[in-house]
């Protein structure tokens, strides 16, 4: 029971939804798995956009587009044989939750322990975001978190891989390293204070890019975690993509 909620809006358009979401006491609501679990007491109005976002995956000749309402389980099944499907599955150990959690909501939450968030940043997917009264295109790495995500698009031939380090496979990973073989761009997530982004060149750059990113905790020291990132990068760059 989310007791603070007094009102549920089901707007007819994204424009209406955008206008309604104008206070700190309101929130956009897609799959809702994060929001209902948190039950933030300051939220009085839920703006349900489930019916406004696409829940289909479309593969065209060179691109793939995923509606923001597609669930993680749909992605895990559709891309079962690729790293995208694996990441969607590992982002949430529970199939029950994957059946409900949407990719739009997952991106909007910006959780750095989510494998799929790190992977989408590694690809640097394009987001179609409804901001105020217009639909804009913005890359995920440049998105400021404002607006309503309606679609995710990326090139079919994205040459990427990801490694995750967790105490057990179902636990949230403390380090996730995504690597783009084409751009040599690396994204680091996990139990970090942000997504670290850098181009892989020399190890000194890794140290600089990860400065302040990790903390010492039960998973290991900062030094250990940076070492783990370097090991992953070594595997990516030494191995054949």
């Amino acid at each position, binding site marked *: 029971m989310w007791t603070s909620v*007094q009102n549920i809006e089901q707007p007819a358009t994204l424009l209406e939804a955008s206008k309604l979401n104008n206070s700190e006491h309101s929130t956009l609501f897609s799959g*809702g798995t994060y929001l209902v679990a948190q039950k933030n007491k300051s939220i009085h109005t839920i703006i349900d956009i489930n019916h406004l976002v696409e829940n289909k995956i479309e593969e065209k000749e060179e691109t793939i587009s995923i509606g923001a309402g597609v669930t993680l389980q749909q992605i895990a099944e559709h891309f079962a044989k690729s790293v995208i499907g694996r990441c969607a599955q590992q982002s949430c150990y529970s199939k029950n*939750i994957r059946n409900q959690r949407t990719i739009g909501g997952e991106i909007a939450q910006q959780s750095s322990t989510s494998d799929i968030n790190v992977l989408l940043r590694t690809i640097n997917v394009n987001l179609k975001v409804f901001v105020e009264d217009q639909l804009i295109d913005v890359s995920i790495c440049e998105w400021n978190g404002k607006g309503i995500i309606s679609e995710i698009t990326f090139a079919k031939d994205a040459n990427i891989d990801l490694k995750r380090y967790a105490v057990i496979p179902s636990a949230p990973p403390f380090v996730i390293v995504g690597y783009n073989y084409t751009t040599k761009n690396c994204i680091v997530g996990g139990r970090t204070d942000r997504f670290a982004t850098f181009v892989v060149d020399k190890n000194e750059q890794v140290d600089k890019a990860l400065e302040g990113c990790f903390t010492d905790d039960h998973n290991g020291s900062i030094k250990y975690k940076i070492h783990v990132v370097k090991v992953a990068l070594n595997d990516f760059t030494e191995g054949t993509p």
Partner: protein
Amino acid sequence: MKIAFTLNGQETKAEFTPGETLFHYLRSDEIYSVKNGCELGECGACTVLVDNKAQNSCLILMHTLEGTVVETIENLGSKSNLHHLQQKFIDEGAVQCGYCTPGMILASEALLRESEQPTSEQVKDALAGNLCRCTGYVKPIKAVCNE
């Protein structure tokens, strides 16, 4: 607020307050097989089937269920007429305290509706969101795999 949906095969008109979850609605409707575990989506004790997919009822707000088909374990079998999965769980000794069992059976049933002969990996994945702290997972997985 009001919605119409199908609950265990019955057309149902539900009346609820805006922040009410399906879990609370079902318990107040005396459907006690839906257990209260964490209310955070972590344990799967409150698993139900929504349009044949296993979901945690504690994370589902009632207003999202308009037109859906919701099933709890009461829809699968009864004491006098056990569902084949319930019988299999008994046969394999996959039940101890039983608190997680309705959720486990519903998650397994959802998988079996998708795929008649799932691999053990698929079974493990389907049950990963259902925590058990007494029986463990070996026997439930065996019960579903031998189904």
